[in-house]
């Protein structure tokens, strides 16, 4: 099966062609203002290089930072009505209460709170009031809003209220599109609701982006299905990404870590991805990125969906090295994508991290002789500083004394020594396009996060029930049922609750059908 993996980054758009486990070709080209043009160009280039005709490609996997950038820049978000089913609870903190003002303005800031919601054990806080919902529908319609996010208390335990409210609002607002918080987030009403509102506000952009990807692929003669990669390294089909664009927010670092794992054959490792401006350090556990446990801030808004635990430092190939007097400083500024004009080895005038390793003869890049203007002692000190920065980040992500390897990927990974913190550094083939490879090998997942009462069933039965539900979700998302395996499970007893209430989080993955 021939696949194409594409990673649309802020600086570069990378693409690879893979035949099964074999990489046939990989290219790196600058990201263009018109993102789709860049995607079409890089696919054309990589297909040419591989010699594979477009007709033989079975699937295209795309990783993109398009949606998270929209949020960070407050662009392309549409006005969204937030409807929370909660009364009388939770009225002291209305939806979007903890958002930065400019972000709230970007989505219009309009919300309604209504009767509804569940208790932790499934009882109703209060029943839905259909008349109240009809009034809300009329007000939303009058405000000219057709994007709606619905949240309900304890909807991760029971989503029935969110669904019934959606049906009711749909009767009055047939053209509206809906995001339900239960489909997106975990327990924690504010964080889950935040994610739902952001998701709803991005759906128009998502629809446009998906159409544009479709057009870009048709342009280069590809008629196969395509997928977008999500935060945990698994794939979403085009309908799914249209519905849940927020799930792509952390796909960039995830793809580079998964790609590094694939290219090196290592499943437990520290991954150091060095780009032009920043270095992302993460940890691979069983081939997947370790997840952050706490809330994650996106554009100033707290969310609680799963994201990889990534530690970023301001160090890259283009990082500026200042050697004034005795003190050597490395960063935080970088020449970024202007490295080909500004770095000494390329005939420029700025001493960069790349020049340091080239000048010391540790990497073959540009014309090392041009670094001769800086004495070796200084270069050596700068190199020690660079190693110390990366080493600190590696130590931060390391979770055991086991001698796991460090996987160095990304264009800037020439900065890495062969051994760091006593760990072997592996620079796999095709390391500079590891993120596109990570996209190409994406898998299908299914996840459950619910509270079970172990008073009525055993822990094993509860885990089995959760696994069955997660498997069903994975199959619905396109996974081959025979390939599904358990990726991660966690059960947390809930303090103070009777009946041995336990929260079970569980995730399965499988390979893509076909």
């Amino acid at each position, binding site marked *: 099966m021939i696949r194409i993996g594409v990673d649309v980054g802020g600086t570069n758009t990378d693409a690879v062609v893979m035949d099964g486990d074999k990489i046939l070709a990989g290219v790196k080209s600058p990201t263009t203002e018109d993102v789709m043009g860049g995607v079409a160009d890089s696919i054309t280039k990589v297909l040419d290089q591989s010699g594979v005709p477009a007709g033989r490609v079975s699937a295209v996997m795309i990783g993109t930072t398009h949606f998270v950038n929209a949020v960070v820049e407050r662009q392309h978000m549409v006005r969204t009505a937030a409807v929370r089913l*909660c009364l*009388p*609870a*939770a*009225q*002291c*903190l209305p939806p979007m*209460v*903890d958002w930065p003002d400019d972000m709230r303005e970007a989505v219009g800031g309009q919300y309604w709170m209504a009767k509804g*919601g569940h*208790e*932790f*054990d499934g*009882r109703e*806080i*209060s029943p839905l009031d259909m008349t109240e919902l009809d009034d809300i529908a009329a007000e939303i319609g009058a405000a000219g809003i057709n994007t709606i996010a619905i949240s309900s*208390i*304890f909807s991760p335990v029971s989503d029935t209220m969110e669904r019934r409210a959606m049906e009711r609002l749909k009767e009055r607002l047939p053209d509206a599109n809906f995001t339900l918080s239960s489909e997106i987030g975990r*327990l*924690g*009403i*504010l964080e889950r609701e935040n994610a739902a509102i952001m998701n709803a506000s991005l759906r128009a952009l998502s629809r446009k982006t998906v159409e544009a990807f479709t057009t870009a692929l048709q342009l280069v003669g590809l008629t196969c299905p395509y997928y977008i990669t999500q935060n945990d390294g698994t794939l979403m089909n085009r309908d799914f990404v249209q519905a849940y664009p927020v799930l792509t927010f952390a796909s960039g670092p995830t793809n580079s870590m998964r790609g590094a794992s694939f290219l090196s054959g290592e499943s437990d490792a520290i991954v150091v991805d060095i780009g032009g401006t920043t270095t992302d350090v993460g*940890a691979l556990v069983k081939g997947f990125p*370790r997840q952050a*446990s*706490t809330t994650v801030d996106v554009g100033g808004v707290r969310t609680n969906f799963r994201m990889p635990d990534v530690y970023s430092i301001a160090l890259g190939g283009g990082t500026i090295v200042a050697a004034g007097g005795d003190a050597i400083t490395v960063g935080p500024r970088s020449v970024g994508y202007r490295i080909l004009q500004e770095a000494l080895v390329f005939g420029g005038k700025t001493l960069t991290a790349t020049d340091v390793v080239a000048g010391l003869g540790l990497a073959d890049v540009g014309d090392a002789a041009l670094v001769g203007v800086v004495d070796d002692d200084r270069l050596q000190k700068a190199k020690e500083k660079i190693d110390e920065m990366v080493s600190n980040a590696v130590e*931060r992500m390391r*979770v*055991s*004394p086991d001698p796991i390897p460090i996987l160095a990927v990304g264009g800037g990974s020439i900065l890495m020594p062969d051994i760091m913190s006593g760990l072997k550094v592996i620079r796999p083939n095709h390391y500079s396009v590891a993120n596109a490879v990570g996209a190409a090998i994406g898998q299908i997942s299914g996840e459950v996060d619910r509270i079970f009462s*172990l008073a009525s069933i055993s822990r094993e039965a509860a885990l089995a029930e959760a696994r069955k539900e997660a498997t069903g979700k994975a199959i619905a998302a396109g996974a081959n049922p025979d390939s599904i395996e358990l990726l991660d499970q966690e059960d*947390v*007893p*809930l*303090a*103070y*609750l*009777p009946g*041995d*209430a*336990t*929260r079970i989080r569980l995730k399965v993955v499988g390979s893509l059908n076909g």
Partner: protein
Amino acid sequence: MADTMREVTLDDLDALEVGAAILGTGGGGNPYIGKLRVREELRKGRKIPVIPLDELPDNALVVSLGGIGAPVVGVEKIEEGEECLRALRAVEQEVGRKVDALISAEIGGANAMEPMLTAAQAGLPIVDGDGMGRAFPEMQMITWSIYGQRSAPAAMADEKGNVVVFRETQSDKWLEDLARATVVAMGAAAGLAQAPMRGEFVKRAAIPNTVTQARNLGRAVLDANREHRDPVQAVIDHEGGRLLMTAKISDLQRHLKGGFAVGHLSLDGYGNFQGDTGRINLQNEFLIFVRNDTVEVCVPDLIVVLDADTGHPITTEMLRYGQRIAVLGLPCHGLLRTPEALAVVGPAAFGYPDVTFVPMQSRGGIR
């Protein structure tokens, strides 16, 4: 003292959130929601005056308030907003008098904020102090109870308008048991107001100045973060505590016992503590710290777990395998070290009859 609080203002809230969570010693619930709620009250123009403990009139009537329930429910079913106010009104009605000031039942965690909200709504001041100086899982573990104040009549209120009054209870442990059953029926989150206390008693029994302490502690951490100093050291300096270990969590076991999360975490030291192993036992809060098989710090002294880099507190529900943490011991207040206090909040009360409480200061500095 120039930095003694006279009023809770918007500028104090971020620091209060961090400081209260640190004093929560892993439990007490996350104060983030409480912070947002106090902010909303202040934005409405309401005030929260703070009375220093030594300025409290002897004949003032003071009520201790707090949320009761499961912390995980608190972040999902947020309160309607006036639960504690309705509980307060019920207690006032029961005793036939208006109260003069409110005080926090426990400064550790979400309950640091609860009396501030009710104070803003009722137009009352809060007292600078609390009944635990940290967080504990049960109501009889409060200094009011330890030093002889009966907590009935007490009242509980939920978001739906249900109010339950406990007119008479045979002990504070009975109140704990009855309230625990009631809060489950109420959906595992409610506000609770205890019997009014005389100012003269509160001055004797309250852990003093803990509102100011929480604010200043949080401020020390946030300042350290902003100025790129070590936030863990900032906590130690502020509280007169000690760094017990920098470690990675090498094992984590939690299970339910009698409605509480109990378990332990195993630690592998790193940095200056390379080669040490450690263990922390927990029941909602962190109870006992063991280094290389020797108990080094135990309740009621505070065992605090911080993110090694940010200095921000990690609650027991946020723990995970592989985390890099700094474990700190902070000395508890003298009111928790008396024989009558140790009978209720010492290691034996938590099921460790073989552990003898030795105040951490008297063990001296190890590093």
